């Protein structure tokens, strides 16, 4: 499953759905709103492109590593400290490829998928700087 959504996700449901008789390892990554002195944050996305790029990253990961399944759910809209932002569920036959696949996916997501965060502090707000490479390449 690849999806952008406002609602929270159910981790247990997705982990159970990722299991098969061949599954030996499932690695999950959950990104969470950290308290950096903020009141809340707003996530914005270029929806149609973001979902397409998430699917590309899933396909890249499955080509690079022997994974059985990949699910990525990214939330948009207003979020508070402690709220879930993103869930990645990677299933594989063995732990090593599951860990590597999951790390690959979150690193690529942060570099390329058009999603932005605006943090709201008590008296101000700020856009979060990204990890995308700058410049003409």
């Amino acid at each position, binding site marked *: 499953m690849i999806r952008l959504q406002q609602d929270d996700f159910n981790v247990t449901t997705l982990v159970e759905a990722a299991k098969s008789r061949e599954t030996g390892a499932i690695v999950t990554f959950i990104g969470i709103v950290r308290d950096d002195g903020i009141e809340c944050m707003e996530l914005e996305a270029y929806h149609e492109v973001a979902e397409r790029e998430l699917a590309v990253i899933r396909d890249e990961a499955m080509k690079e590593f022997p994974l059985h399944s990949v699910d990525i759910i990214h939330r948009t809209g207003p979020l508070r400290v402690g709220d879930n932002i993103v869930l990645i569920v990677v299933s594989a036959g063995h732990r090593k490829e599951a860990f590597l696949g999951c790390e690959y996916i979150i690193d690529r997501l942060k570099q390329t998928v058009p999603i932005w965060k605006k943090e709201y502090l008590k008296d101000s707000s700020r*856009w979060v700087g990204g990890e995308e490479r700058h410049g003409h390449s």
Partner: protein
Amino acid sequence: MIVRIKAFARFREIIGSENTLDLDEGTPVLGALKNLSAGSKDFRDACFDREGTIASHVVLMINGKRISGRDRESMVLHDGDELAIFPPVAGG
């Protein structure tokens, strides 16, 4: 020709999420962005560096595909294209 401009994050805050430009056939990306700059100093300051070239941190897409490299300014737009402009991404 009609070109749709989609702006995100701080660019959206300056010019709104969606604009439609009626441009001459063969207008390049630079021309479309200068057209938008004519109506907004804030947009011009956010989009261009002091030399008048598109700032290196500005990310551009045509029809959902990134355009990069030194020639991105001169890429020609076509009727019905969607040009997206945004800052570096920060998801996850």
